[in-house]
């Protein structure tokens, strides 16, 4: 079965339809709303598989179907669908993970009063993301991009009665909007320079050689190539959406939404959008690579941002105590990895990591959701513990996810994708700093994930809630198991020995592998680093479990200053509050003052002037003009009264008048010799 590109729109349309159904369903229609959402997503998954089959049949081609949206004078605004392996793989991932998350949600939100609304939003979220994936136009992509933002706002703030959730939703929305402004500017600039927003259009698209050549040839402020500037502006959008430094602050706060939403945001939909965007416009981003004279290449910036984010996120994650926050910062860190990979020139490795990460991060989030659900919404790992016994399925799957994320060698998918990124960083000839940042993050990742698992599942329960926890129903565990299986198996699609996925993404039909141990030095190093991370984590947290909920963290005991800084997340929120927030307040005060004292005074003066003129006028008016007008008006009123007497209110009379008038008219015409 394969899906022609003309019908690609069906993939986002079905969840959209489900969202429509969900929005029209009354609160009691739980089964209908969730059923529609899940069925739509499952069908989309099948369609995506069809699309994948189509794309794999000719991986090098960019199949497009363009159409005119509306006419603008001479030219038309055109949109279109695009099908290539990148789109197809992403669609399959989003729909598969999405389906499992949807199923999980029916269990997780079982008792929520707004169950139907939740599924409406979820479907909208998925539909927007899928639309973004299949778009062949930066405009369509932007529309879906904003829809993703809207849906995430609605979902993060789903429990809007909690002030923290409402604030987090607002924060996520506003923060990502900052990045989106860059994207919008980039888009406008791009349209201005090339006259098109279609990615591929038979040689006319913005990602094709003609347009790129034109963009590279021009330079703008500071000697940048135009393509670099546009690329960086577009990258701003990705920074916002994918939670990159310095706009990463919204991502941990987005944990306020229900856990399936976190899973969806962190694994499949929202944050993946940024990475996908960069990968999609990769020809544009890398267009300036051949130029030697430019001050900076777009990809260098991407790599720098990615490296900083990877390290930063991993560091902060070490000191967090909320189970979801640890995972959130790990997402930040992993997204940094992906950006790093994009920056060092291997977008294929980035997408590989994006896919594997989607599965194991969804697994981890759903696992944490399972824990939270079982522990009656206790999220603090200091107050959990000892869940290994009562929650076997959750523990096993969570451990698989943890090992995939930590990069435990050979068996787990995370290892292979991370390895691909490190390799790419190693081969980057500009600088090795990203490589070092990545290696440091490897240790930290292994460390904090071990800490998380040890604190949550080992030891003894440290609170009332944790001691009463028991395993959840099959509707929640079965998705976990499925995801766990994928988290293991997926890595084998892209091992260095047989890099099938990479080859297909790059458009090759045959696969050229090389022995796994070819660049064994780096491989060994990272295995050692992982071992160090896990070992130190186990030594600190696993061997001597925390005694009670209030006991000091081992690191806190030894390095209290560093721990406090990390726990406070380097104070980014405070920094923004102190700088951006303060600046905003100051500007507001300034504007207020300007308005109050300068403009207002001017207006008041004019008003007084006008008033004076009015007084003069009135004096002239009352005596001179009014007298005449009054007389005229009296005359008019008299005439009108006599006319209105003809208005008898009787319909017969009117009709009679019309008929007589008709007769007279005809007579005049006839006797007058015709017209």
């Amino acid at each position: 079965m394969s899906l022609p590109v003309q019908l690609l729109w069906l993939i986002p349309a079905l969840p959209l339809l489900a969202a429509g159904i969900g929005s029209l369903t009354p609160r009691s229609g739980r089964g209908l709303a969730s059923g529609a959402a899940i069925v739509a997503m499952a069908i989309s998954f099948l369609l995506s598989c069809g699309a994948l089959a189509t794309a794999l049949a000719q991986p090098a081609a960019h199949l497009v179907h363009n159409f005119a949206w509306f006419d603008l004078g001479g030219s038309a605004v055109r949109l279109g669908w695009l099908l290539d392996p990148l789109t197809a793989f992403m669609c399959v991932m989003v729909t598969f993970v999405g389906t499992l998350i949807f199923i999980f949600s029916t269990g997780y939100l079982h008792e929520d009063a707004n169950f139907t609304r939740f599924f409406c939003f979820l479907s909208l979220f998925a539909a927007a993301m899928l639309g973004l994936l299949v778009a062949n136009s930066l405009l369509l992509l932007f529309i879906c991009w904003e829809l993703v933002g809207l849906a995430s706002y609605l979902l993060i703030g789903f429990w809007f009665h909690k002030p923290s959730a409402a604030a987090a939703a607002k924060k996520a929305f506003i923060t990502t909007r900052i990045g989106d402004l860059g994207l919008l500017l980039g888009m406008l600039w791009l349209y201005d320079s090339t006259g098109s927003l279609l990615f591929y259009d038979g040689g006319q698209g913005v990602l094709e050689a003609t347009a790129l050549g034109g963009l590279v040839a021009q330079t703008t402020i500071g000697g940048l190539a135009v393509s670099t500037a546009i690329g960086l502006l577009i990258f701003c959008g990705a920074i916002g959406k994918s939670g990159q430094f310095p706009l990463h602050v919204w991502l941990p706060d987005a944990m306020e939404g229900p856990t399936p939403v976190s899973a969806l945001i962190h694994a499949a939909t929202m944050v993946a959008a940024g990475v996908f965007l960069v990968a999609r416009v990769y020809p544009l981003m890398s267009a300036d690579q051949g130029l030697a004279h430019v001050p900076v290449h777009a990809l260098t910036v991407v790599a720098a941002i990615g490296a900083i984010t990877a390290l930063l996120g991993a560091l902060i994650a070490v000191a967090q105590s909320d189970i979801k926050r640890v995972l959130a910062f790990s997402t930040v860190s992993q997204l940094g990895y992906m950006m790093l990979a994009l920056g060092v020139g291997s977008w294929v490795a980035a997408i590989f990591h994006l896919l594997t990460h989607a599965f194991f991060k969804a697994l981890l989030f759903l696992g944490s959701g399972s824990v939270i659900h079982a522990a009656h919404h206790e999220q603090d790992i200091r107050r959990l513990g000892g869940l290994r016994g009562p929650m076997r399925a959750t523990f096993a799957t969570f451990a698989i996810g943890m090992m995939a994320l930590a990069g435990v060698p050979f068996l787990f998918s995370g290892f292979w994708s991370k390895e691909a990124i490190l390799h790419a960083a190693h081969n980057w000839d500009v600088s090795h700093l990203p490589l070092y940042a990545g290696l440091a993050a490897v240790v930290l990742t292994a460390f904090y994930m071990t800490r998380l698992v040890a604190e949550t599942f080992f030891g003894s329960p440290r609170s009332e809630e944790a001691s009463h926890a028991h395993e959840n129903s099959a509707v929640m565990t079965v998705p976990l198991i499925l995801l766990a299986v994928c988290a293991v198996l997926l890595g084998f699609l892209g091992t260095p020995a047989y890099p099938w996925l990479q080859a297909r993404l790059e458009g090759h039909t045959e696969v050229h592998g090389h022995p796994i141990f070819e660049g064994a030095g780096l491989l060994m190093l990272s295995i050692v680093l992982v071992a160090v991370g896990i070992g130190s984590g186990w030594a600190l947290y696993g061997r001597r479990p925390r005694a009670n909920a209030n006991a000091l963290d081992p690191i806190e005991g030894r390095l209290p200053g560093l721990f406090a800084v990390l726990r406070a997340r380097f104070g980014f929120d405070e920094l923004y509050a102190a700088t951006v927030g303060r600046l905003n307040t100051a500007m507001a005060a300034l504007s207020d003052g300007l308005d109050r004292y300068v403009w207002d005074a001017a207006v008041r003066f004019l008003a007084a002037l006008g008033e004076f003129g009015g007084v003069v006028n009135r004096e002239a008016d009352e005596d001179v003009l009014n007298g005449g007008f009054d007389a005229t008006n009296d005359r008019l009123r008299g005439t009108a009264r006599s006319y209105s007497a003809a208005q008898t209110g009787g319909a017969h009379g009117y009709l009679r008048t019309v008929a007589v008038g008709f007769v007279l008219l005809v007579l005049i015409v006839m006797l007058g010799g015709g017209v």
Partner: protein
Amino acid sequence: MNAMPGIFAAATGADSLLERWPILFRDTVAGFFPAPLQWLVGSLISILAIVAIFGGVFAALTLLERKMLGRVQNRPGPNRTGPFGLLQPIADGIKMLTKEDIVPRSADHLLHFLAPVALLAFSILTFAVIPFGRNLVPLELDAAVLYFFAAGAATELAIFMAGWASRNKFSLLAAMRALAQLISYELPLLLSFVPIIMLAGTLSMTGIIDQQAGWNFGFIPKWYIFTPWGFAAFAIFLVAALAESNRSPFDLPEAESELIAGHLTEYSGFKYALFFMAEYFGMIALSGMAITLFLGGWRAPLPFLEFIPSYLWFGAKLLGLLLLFIWIRGTFPRLRMDQLTRLAWKFLVPLALFNLGTAAFWSLTSGWSGPLQLARWGVAIALVVVPFVLLGRGLSRGVAPRTYRFA
């Protein structure tokens, strides 16, 4: 001026003799007359045939209905006249003909007389366009469907005339009810078959039947009832047709417990029989319409059954529908007036409008094949079922199934 089309289309040589003999018979008889009179004689023969056949069907149907209702109510039904009561229709006829014809003194005599005549005349008029068989279309019209409903609309008038002319408050109330009911159900009735006209692209009965030729997978006939929207439309059509022909459970104008015999209260003898006849004719005509629109007309349901003459298939389908009507009459209790109008306006009309959308979707996606065909069916079924469930829930809000503790 319209050239009068041949009252029956000429038989083509390809048909079997079984198919052709009515036409051959007519042409042979007409051949005895001089040429200018031939079409007149042909038409007369057709008209006589229709009146005779459906008169007979009417007689048999009265007996059948009473027998069936008897079975439903666990009693034997008429069984005294002739073997198994088979001669009952004849006895009824003689009784009706010989009964005194009473006209109330203050009645409007002319209208009182005209009402049953007009009713019957309009009922029979509708037969003119129904294709009874492969070649048996009495009048081949371009806008046959429209003609059918135009002629059917006039029957409402006759019922009103009967009710008003009787000068009886029960009759008048019944007439008002009948008007309200007919106006309410005209809309779903018309809306229910608009999708078919949309899909078939013609108003001609023959054209609609031609569109239903052929088989899916070699054995499922391509009748419109075998599509999601067609099934929904058929259900709506059936309900509306029941209401249009004043059949139970929509027989409010003649609700015995409330209005004596409704607009028939002041009628007796042969006029009463005419009303009765017209009601059955109306029922037969609407059934014939349903067969033409939804059930493939005179077409055979399976390929290897095509050797049976088409008019027999039509007759079999007609009998099936009539039995269904009788069964419904024996089973369902009568609705209340407000329930009746609510059902029409709040349920059938929106449903029919939704169905229009479904049919549009169906028509737009006719190019889909392979797995997409599954999606097409799924979406169409969803478009039918979801509004049905939602609207039905709105209709029965606050009404729960009763539970009987001691039953």
